């Protein structure tokens, strides 16, 4: 097979990736800018990182975001895995269409609608809003992503190993935990990561469902951006991008090694 890329293909990749990455790179570069401006280079300095560490508002927001992220992604992964298994394994059951609809709809639903509806419900139920309600909201949309990822993994899962386990005396539920779950674990983990990222990144839904004292990092960044662009925001952004980059690189390397061991990487 002729695997040579044409000029058109080459330029597509280069231009495409440039388009994706140049804004991020500019952001990172200017987080080290000496002056307050984010577009005129005045010299290298790390002072904005310093002032970031003093910025209690941002640090508090980061802490809230982290808590919400960890709790919501863990619960969402459990619920989402259950939903994914149900969608993949259980043929027709009563209310299946509604179930499918409720799983797929949040994937594309505009956030203003989900945020608004959840807020109105919390108010109607007189629930105090805060980090807890944000967490509930995040679990709700994250679990749908996990469900889709898990279901996709299960769709090309070799069921004969489950049958083999049952044949050897392992009851069905135990088979799921001892056999199925370990084998689909990478998908479940990917679902967790996806939930965590979505939670970390969410602005709109958090704004609707939050309450006094519970400001998340995106909310904080947004409010500061409306006031004016400062390099401190660049610094926060660079840290976040750096953390994510490290995470993705590690995950990718682990995956590559895993595939190489299986001889699947040619």
């Amino acid at each position, binding site marked *: 097979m002729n695997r040579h890329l044409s000029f058109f293909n080459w330029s597509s990749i280069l231009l495409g990736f440039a388009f994706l990455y140049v804004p991020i790179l500019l952001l990172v570069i200017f987080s080290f800018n000496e002056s307050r401006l984010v577009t005129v280079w005045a010299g290298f300095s790390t002072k904005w990182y310093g002032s970031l560490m003093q910025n209690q508002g941002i640090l508090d927001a980061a802490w809230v975001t982290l808590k919400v992220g960890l709790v919501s992604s863990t619960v969402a992964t459990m619920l989402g895995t259950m939903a994914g298994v149900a969608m993949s394994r259980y043929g027709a059951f009563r209310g299946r269409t509604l179930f499918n609809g409720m799983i797929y709809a949040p994937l594309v639903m505009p956030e203003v609608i989900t945020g608004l509806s959840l807020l109105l419900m919390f108010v109607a139920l007189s629930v105090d809003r805060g980090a807890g309600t944000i967490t509930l909201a995040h679990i709700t949309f994250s679990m749908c992503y996990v469900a889709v990822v898990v279901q996709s993994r299960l769709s090309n899962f070799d069921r*004969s*190993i489950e*049958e*083999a*386990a*049952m*044949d*050897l005396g392992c009851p069905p539920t135990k088979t799921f935990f001892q056999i199925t779950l*370990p084998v689909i674990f990478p998908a479940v983990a990917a679902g967790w990561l996806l939930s965590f990222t979505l939670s970390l990144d969410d602005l709109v839904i958090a704004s609707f469902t939050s309450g006094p004292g519970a400001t998340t990092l995106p909310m904080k960044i947004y409010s500061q951006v409306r006031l004016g662009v400062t390099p401190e925001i660049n610094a926060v952004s660079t840290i976040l991008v750096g953390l994510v980059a490290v995470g993705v690189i590690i995950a990718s390397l682990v995956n590559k090694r895993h595939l190489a061991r299986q001889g699947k990487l040619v």
Partner: protein
Amino acid sequence: MTDRAFVRIEQVSKKFGAITAVDNVSLTIEKGEFFSLLGPSGCGKTTLLRMLAGFETPTSGRIIIEGEDMSEVPPHHRPVNMMFQSYALFPHMTVRQNIAFGLKQDKHPRAEINRVTDEMLQLVKMSDYAKRKPDQLSGGQMQRVALARALVKRPKILLLDEPLGALDKKLREETQFELVNIQEELGITFVIVTHDQEEAMTMSTRIAVMDQGRIEQVAGPSEVYETPASRKVAEFIGDVNIFAGRVEEKNAEFLSARCHSPGCTIHANPSDVQVGEDIYVALRPEKLTIAKTPPADSSRNCLHGEIWDIGYLGKMSIYHVKLPDGRIILAAAQNRQRRNEQELTWEDKVYVSWSQNAALVLRD
């Protein structure tokens, strides 16, 4: 017969929607047998096997193992273990853990589990690979692990789904003998599903030939080969020439049938067919004699034709002989001499003849 019948399959049918995969099958399998379910793809043999294992429930009929009705018994409670076609080894466990899995479910003490697992590893000659994971094994090695895993609980019945399909020819022959040895040593009843008739003939005590969900014949290998119950069975096992004809005469010594195509008279051993009945005569290629000179009596059991093609197989040759009406029959001859004694070659005019004993009369 009930004492010897270990497994009774009573009028079992399985439908998937409009499709009938297994059609009213009744069988008994005896203890200690090496029993094969043989047939082409789609004949229902795998479905029947899965019903024995408990992964499918019969639409009607029941399965009784050792006197116990299995209708309400789920797979993890049956005294049956299965070796899967794809081996189905647990990818996240080592060879040792795979084999020990069945014992762990029964909560045997750790020391005993280790002991039995070691025995099994030795039996299948995989002791050196105990710590490896399935993705580090070759096809043959995976198969041995799958076998050990299925045997470790000493099940009453072992089901094997196309166990030799993925192996190359040499390995297949070796494994066939190993399987038979293991079965005799452990005294377990084996039920094997295969589409390879050579496999079934080599290993089995009895064969059930299936086609389109139904059982065509259940008998030992030689009986299935030499006295097939129907044309379908005759054609599925080995090569065969089949002629259509009508019974013309019948007496104590022979019965005579007239075939139109090719035009010839066939004498066969007497059987219960009636004069005037339409029948089929089946002739195995190796029972035919092929020569350049005609036989003593060429008025019956003899055909004249031209060698159309020769299939040289080393130990024997298969001659494709074209008859005057255009039909091609197969005659096989062993190559006893290092050079062909008659030196038969393409386009030679030959006589193909056979004995009365060789002709097999079938009703359908």
